[in-house]
């Protein structure tokens, strides 16, 4: 193939800088060698529907922003973290390394804000009914991402190896152990022994810094690819408008630029939270000591924690089975609610979802207060 024969498409010519400028020559040289204009045109043509609920479309981008912060601060923490001396090395980051406490606190707060954003993102797409056909793939990859991110939180929790991380992970893995048939096997594999120990750190470290990042990146890629191919979902009220009443904004150069101030605000919030409420480091884990008083899971696990308390003794398995059902229902949602625009069934499902949200919030608050 002779690259010199590839001419620049007319609509590219209309957008590119003039051919006699330096950048103009550079872009033309690139397009001659790599004729990707259709791809660029595809992205430039990406549109976001504009309506009164448009602001919710920003949540995915905000979650992605927090994920980028996690990658950067995570790499920085890896520079000094030593899985062989977990508590000592984290203590050194906090006490000795300049800005170490800030970077660690940012990693903590960004993780929490990312999970919060993902919850909001999930419920906003749920109530806009963006999960319906043909977008089942986006919904399911999104759900997998939420699960992976929670696993991220759980595995990262152990790494400082303080009292809190030790008992939190011991509780988490012993809940896992109670699952019939595979529970014990999986728990042993996760712990690398009969109890949480330094052996567990190596496993959780590999999970936290290699396996989960690769999985999350792959699923973010799929999630975004699906959205690029299918376009942003339109709520029923918007889709019902006559074509000339529908307003759209370009994603690149318009919607995304509008998101930059939001990202900057989130960054400011992150710094403020990290400075005002830095993440503490409790005493080094002591497998022989009593669990610290008032120990409670992170806020996003409070609801299942409180719910499990309602099923004492042998009934706990019933509670766990019911809680295992919830994620299955969430995955199945696009197959239970297909009708576009929504009919009676769709409205019922929205009501059930509102009930679920209220229940989740109620359980969380109850867990917080109890």
């Amino acid at each position: 193939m002779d690259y010199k024969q590839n001419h620049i498409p007319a609509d590219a010519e209309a957008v590119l800088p003039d051919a006699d400028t330096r950048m103009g020559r550079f872009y033309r040289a690139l397009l001659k060698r790599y004729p990707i204009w259709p791809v660029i045109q595809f992205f430039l043509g990406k549109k976001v529907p504009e309506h009164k609920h448009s602001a919710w479309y920003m949540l995915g981008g905000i979650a992605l922003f927090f994920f980028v912060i996690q990658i950067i601060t995570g790499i920085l923490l890896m520079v000094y973290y030593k899985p062989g001396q977990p508590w000592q090395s984290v203590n050194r980051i906090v006490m000795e390394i300049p800005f170490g406490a800030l970077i660690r606190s940012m990693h903590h707060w960004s993780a929490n804000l990312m999970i919060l954003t993902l919850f909001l993102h999930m419920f906003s797409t749920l109530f806009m009914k963006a999960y319906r056909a043909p977008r089942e793939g986006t919904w399911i990859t999104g759900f997998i991402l939420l699960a992976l991110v929670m696993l991220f939180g759980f595995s990262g929790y152990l790494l400082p190896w303080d009292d809190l991380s030790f008992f939190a992970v011991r509780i988490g893995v012993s809940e896992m152990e109670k699952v019939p048939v595979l529970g014990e096997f999986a728990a042993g594999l996760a712990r690398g022994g009969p109890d949480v120990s330094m052996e567990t750190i190596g496993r959780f470290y590999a999970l936290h810094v290699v396996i989960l990042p690769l999985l999350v990146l792959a699923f973010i890629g799929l999630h975004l690819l699906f959205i690029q191919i299918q376009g942003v979902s339109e709520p029923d009220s918007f889709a019902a408008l006559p074509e000339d009443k529908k307003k759209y904004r370009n994603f690149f150069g318009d919607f995304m630029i509008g998101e930059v101030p939001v990202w900057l605000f989130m960054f400011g919030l992150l710094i403020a939270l990290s400075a005002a409420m830095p993440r503490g480091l409790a005493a080094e884990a002591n497998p022989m000591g009593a669990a610290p008083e008032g120990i409670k899971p992170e806020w996003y696990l409070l609801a299942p924690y409180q719910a499990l308390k309602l099923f004492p003794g042998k009934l706990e398995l019933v509670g766990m089975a019911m809680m295992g059902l919830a994620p299955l229902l969430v995955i199945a949602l696009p197959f239970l609610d297909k009708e576009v625009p929504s009919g009676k069934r769709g409205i019922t499902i929205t009501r059930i979802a509102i009930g679920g949200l209220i229940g989740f919030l109620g359980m969380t608050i109850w867990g917080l207060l109890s």
Partner: protein
Amino acid sequence: MTESRIEKKGPPSDAPKNDKRRKFLLAAAGGIGVAWAGAAAYPVYKYLAPQPVPDPFGEEGKAVVDKITPADVANPGMGKNGGYASRGLIVLRNGEGELKAFDSKCTHAGCNVQFQGNVIHCNCHGGEYDLTGKNISGPPPKPLTELKVFVENGALYVSPMEPQQKG
């Protein structure tokens, strides 16, 4: 449907004024961006900057020698590779019966050199030093760093050479 921005080609009617404003706003946004990036990069740089290393000779001005005992260098012609403060060291007793010590980091590329009886040899690129630490063959550009060595309570210690004793 709103018109896509990139499709708007060609300046509007009041172009010169707008062009000036556009340039100013772009420059201002760029300037703020650079300032922001600098502010974000500073803590990252401070975080990554090497931590100060404690003085290898400590407050007392001496460091205990590791893996070499006075018996190892009891007679003229004896010598051995060892270490001090996590660094490589060679201690030897020369023909005149004098104790000598050199930091074993080669002055060429930083490998640790080896005491080989009548010569100090670098296994990485074949550099050689004589028993006074002088570079005599191969790539090393200058002599090995010499250290003061002495026996105290049956153990060897090194301390930095005082400037007047050098050369």
